[in-house]
């Protein structure tokens, strides 16, 4: 593959596109697919063929506004339609060129779209995720060709370091520094792993990227492998994402067919290939050492670090392990330069971040914004605020490792460090909005139950500590908790946080700690008045009043 050949493929795709007057994009990512957008796509194709309309119907990835799905876009008119069903296909096709389906028009001028900056999601909803040619026509693999033909590994690492990109899995470790560490870890065999074991409740950023633009992740991984000197890679993806798994499988075959994977990539001496590994449903396997153990065929349990995977990872060899979104950021950084990327974001957190906006918010879906946007802008401008005239109460970020942030901190800019100061974390990008119908004791109890059942059981504080904390939270939520229970809960939170082996246990107390910090009166109301202010907890359901 040479730059000329790449250009030729891109030209062919563009030519085919120009032959048809219009392109109809139908979202076939998991959200819209659950509303039968596949049937809608079939109906559109049938209607177009029957009417002889010169248009191209294309299944694409996520367009972001999942609550308005199934979504259909008509290009080049720039029209977007929401809640489109198969029964609307005829009207849409017949009205092409005019303004069909007036009731279904979804404005692209609304803040939900206007306030976003798409880097990772630049192709989402625009290309067919199962066609590598579509990705190439959208400047895909240009970054890889440039890296292989013009750049030395150190130059690539320099560019990534310059961009200020930090790990998008949640910890925010500087990506350039991690790449450099692996690159310097000897000259023998090395591995690259893409962590696609997204497990936080309410988070679907990685799933959406894999379903909408999988080639981007592969290109990022290949560039990473070239930079650190690895010849073998793994994508560890959870089996609960069957569509992502299928599209990754297709993408890997397509990339091999084009010569972007395999021996002597693009005619150079560099060889690299990627294998898929499916997770078996353990949240803890998102922790890097547990993930590595799982790939090796062992029980998915974390081990103490150091040594970090950068020095001793998969099969005790230096291993570069990054999250899906981190790798997805790499091609645009190489294409546009690290300096371009570092212009976005805050002083210490550069670039954009994808968030999965869910819960009690008008516009739920997938958004990408520059880091440093305030929570208020994200929830009230982009999200459209809390529906049904209810009052905003808190936003939960970072899943079971994060915390609940109350209204008084809505104007805090979202970055890695600011949310840690508030007792939460930015995490991988889950954002659950809660209104006054949510009970914070119940929220803490829910996440504690999650951590308890997902603890691997290796270290005692996490295994037995989360179980005790869950019992205490249950007692409080049932109205049989005491002040002594509350004190014990605080003590346990502190102990589990500082003594647990891995990140799961160390961050498991966060939901409880943050609600105790900002909503202590709710806990006290449960204990002293046996009353749940939100009316969620089933007071008086305790089987027996324990001592």
């Amino acid at each position, binding site marked *: 593959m040479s730059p000329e050949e790449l250009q030729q493929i891109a030209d062919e795709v563009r030519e085919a596109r120009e032959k048809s007057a219009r392109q109809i994009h139908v979202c076939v990512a998991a959200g819209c697919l659950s509303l039968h957008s596949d049937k809608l796509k079939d109906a559109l194709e049938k209607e177009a063929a029957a009417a002889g309309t010169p248009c191209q119907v294309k299944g694409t990835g996520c367009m972001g506004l999942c609550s308005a799905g199934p979504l259909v876009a008509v290009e080049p008119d720039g029209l977007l339609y929401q809640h489109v069903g198969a029964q609307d296909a005829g009207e849409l096709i017949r009205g092409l060129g005019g303004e069909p389906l007036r009731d279904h028009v979804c404005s692209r001028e609304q803040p939900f779209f206007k306030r976003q900056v798409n880097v990772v999601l630049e192709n989402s909803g625009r290309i067919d995720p199962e066609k590598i040619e579509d990705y190439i026509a959208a400047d895909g693999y240009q970054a890889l060709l440039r890296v292989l033909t013009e750049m030395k590994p150190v130059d690539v690492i320099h560019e990534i370091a310059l961009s200020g990109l930090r790990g998008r899995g949640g910890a925010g470790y500087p990506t350039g520094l991690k790449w450099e560490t692996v690159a310097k870890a000897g000259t023998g065999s090395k591995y690259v792993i893409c962590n696609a074991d997204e497990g936080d409740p309410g988070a679907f950023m990685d799933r959406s990227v894999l379903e909408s633009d999988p080639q981007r992740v592969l290109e990022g991984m290949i560039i990473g492998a070239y930079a650190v000197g690895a010849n073998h890679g793994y994508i560890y993806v959870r089996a609960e994402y069957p569509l992502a798994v299928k599209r990754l499988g297709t993408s890997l075959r397509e990339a091999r067919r084009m010569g972007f994977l395999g021996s002597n990539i693009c005619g150079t001496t560099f060889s690299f290939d990627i294998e898929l590994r499916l997770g078996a449903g353990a949240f803890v396997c998102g922790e890097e050492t547990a993930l590595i153990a799982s790939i090796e065929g062992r029980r998915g349990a974390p081990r103490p670090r150091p040594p970090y995977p950068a020095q001793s990872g998969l099969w005790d060899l230096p291993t570069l392990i990054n999250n899906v979104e981190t790798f997805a950021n790499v091609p645009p950084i190489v294409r546009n330069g690290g300096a371009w990327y570092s212009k976005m974001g805050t002083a210490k957190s550069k670039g954009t971040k994808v968030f999965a906006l869910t819960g009690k918010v008008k516009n739920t879906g997938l958004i990408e914004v520059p880091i440093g946007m305030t929570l208020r802008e994200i929830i009230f401008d982009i999200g459209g605020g809390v529906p049904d005239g209810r009052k905003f109460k808190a936003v939960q970020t970072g899943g079971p490792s994060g915390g609940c942030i109350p209204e008084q901190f809505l104007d805090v800019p979202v970055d890695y460090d600011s949310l840690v100061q508030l007792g939460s974390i930015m995490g991988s990008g889950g954002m659950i909005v809660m209104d006054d119908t949510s009970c914070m004791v119940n929220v803490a109890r829910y996440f504690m139950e999650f951590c308890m059942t997902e603890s691997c*059981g290796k270290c*005692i504080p996490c295994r037995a500590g989360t*179980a*005790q904390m869950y019992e205490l939270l249950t007692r409080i939520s049932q109205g049989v908790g005491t002040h002594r229970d509350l004190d014990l809960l605080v003590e346990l939170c502190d102990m589990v946080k*500082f003594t647990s082996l891995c990140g799961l246990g160390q961050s498991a107390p966060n939901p409880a700690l943050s609600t105790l910090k900002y909503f202590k009166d709710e806990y006290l109301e449960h204990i002293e008045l046996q009353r749940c202010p939100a009316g969620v907890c089933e007071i008086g359901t305790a089987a027996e009043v324990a001592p």
Partner: protein
Amino acid sequence: MSPAADVKTLIINGTDISARADQTILEAATEHDIRIPTLCHLGGLSDVGACRLCLVEVKGSNRLLPACVTKVAEGMEVTTETERLAKYRRMILGLLFAERNHVCSICVANGACQLQSLAESQGMTHVEFPYRFPSLSMDATHERFAIDHNRCILCTRCVRVCSEIEGAHTWDVRGRGVQSLIISDLNQPWGTSETCTSCGKCVQVCPTGALFDKGKVGSKVRKNPDFLPYLNMMREGRS
């Protein structure tokens, strides 16, 4: 020690000591008679850093570090006994007692149990957590030994000794979190295990009364795990 050995000097509890670069804080401390409480650690087996009792404070690190897997470093300042550590250790032991059904007075290991002696040495006077009282089984199908899950603390010493020393890998862990359970083969009765060599090493390394010899259930039957370092040394051809 070869002349080229890399020696580090560090301070543990205010005392200057020297150690080989490949030694852990726990090994260096033990050589100098500084006792750090341990439970999942056992000389001769690989370390997993799971029980968290050996956590120590190291100056300059905001994290507590497990002494059993943390290598010594030049100029390191380690503190093994602080009020905070003592409190955490007592809480961890309390969590273990409350997790399953530990009743010392009716235990085969009463008086010879590491969990019990640690509770004593760490000044544990009572269990502050409510007992969970899980309903757990016992497997006495093996002709000589038995495993009582009610007394198991999931330290995985049995799993490691069976895999690393005996090479049978009869034991493993099933489930996760508080549902974790030690199993033989693919969760088959121990007595029907085709991999078990009946060597009894697991029984000797078990720190509690979870694994025991059916013929020796009287009070104060001591277990003897000290064969391990000796066995390893002989295998490596040292003497």
